[in-house]
């Protein structure tokens, strides 16, 4: 199931028509995944300039609440997804790990921007920066950019939704869309 199919699919399952209106036949796993993917509460977490773009994505012009991300939580215990928006330094790494550990399952991670994916501009000649947040916690979706535009973050969030709906494991999150179109 590719990304496009997922977005168009309103509700998982098939309607079997009957005389009195129809019966929906579906799998419980699919319904749960559908529900989870459309109500992802992000954690309020930002360590540098990517956080500004993230706030922009949350506010009126880009408005990620259109896709079910509206309630940013200030506590990890109520959050579903952590968007690593910014540089992770060695002193911040244990804090990030603890926040991730405190989140309730199922939990998802988006590495936003060059710093969170690889260390970015701080890859060489620095003593303090973690070279990619995936050294600390597992990452579901990586976003390129320095910082990424709000559209790129929205695309990442929608990609995460597609992944959840498909019920994929973390390893299967390769963008199949590009493979299919070629």
């Amino acid at each position, binding site marked *: 199931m590719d990304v496009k199919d997922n977005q168009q699919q309103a509700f998982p399952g098939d309607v079997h028509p009957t005389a009195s209106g129809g019966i929906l036949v579906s799998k419980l796993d699919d319904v749960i995944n559908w529900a989870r993917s459309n109500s992802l509460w992000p954690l309020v977490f930002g360590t540098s300039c990517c956080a500004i773009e993230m706030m922009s994505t949350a506010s009126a012009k880009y408005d990620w609440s259109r896709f079910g991300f509206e309630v940013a939580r200030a506590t990890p215990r109520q959050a579903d997804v952590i968007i690593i928006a910014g540089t992770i330094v060695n002193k911040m790494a244990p804090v990030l790990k603890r926040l991730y550990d405190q989140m309730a399952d199922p939990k998802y991670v988006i590495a936003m921007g060059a710093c969170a994916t690889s260390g970015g501009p701080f890859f060489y000649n620095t*003593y*303090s920066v973690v070279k990619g947040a995936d050294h600390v916690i597992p990452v579901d979706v990586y976003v390129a950019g320095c910082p990424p535009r709000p559209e790129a973050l929205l695309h990442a969030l929608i990609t995460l939704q597609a992944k959840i709906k498909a019920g994929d494991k973390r390893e299967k999150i390769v963008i199949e869309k590009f493979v299919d179109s070629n």
Partner: protein
Amino acid sequence: MNREELQSAITALNADITFEEGGEYLTANIPADACRDIMQALHNLPAFEMDYMFCLTCVDWKTHLTMVYHLESRKHAHAVVIKSKLDRENPEIETLSDIWRTAEFLEREVYDLFGVRFIHHSDLRRLLLTDDWEGYPLRKDYEDPINMIKL
């Protein structure tokens, strides 16, 4: 005061002051042992009234360290950069934290990352690094084989 007036007024404070050409601000090089007296004068004398320190940092030139202070007067709207050369092996200079409170944290940062000791600083502790840190990361010869990937 404009740039020329400021330059001649600062020259009158101490004969050893030299000035750098170019740059956005008037830049004065002062001897480290006279630093505190000159800074006190820049802060206190009504003609200067530099009541705002908007930057305090250090530069490693490999042969020596240079303290760099950016000062501004809110009343007269003039600004000046003061530089002071330090010995790289034994860098120390009088604190300015009692003249400008903002220098308290900025000097702690320079102490932490460059290893400059500020004499008579009231609370010279590490600001950013962990307590057991060895070396001064912002010096040019700093090596960290575990965390640093050299280009």
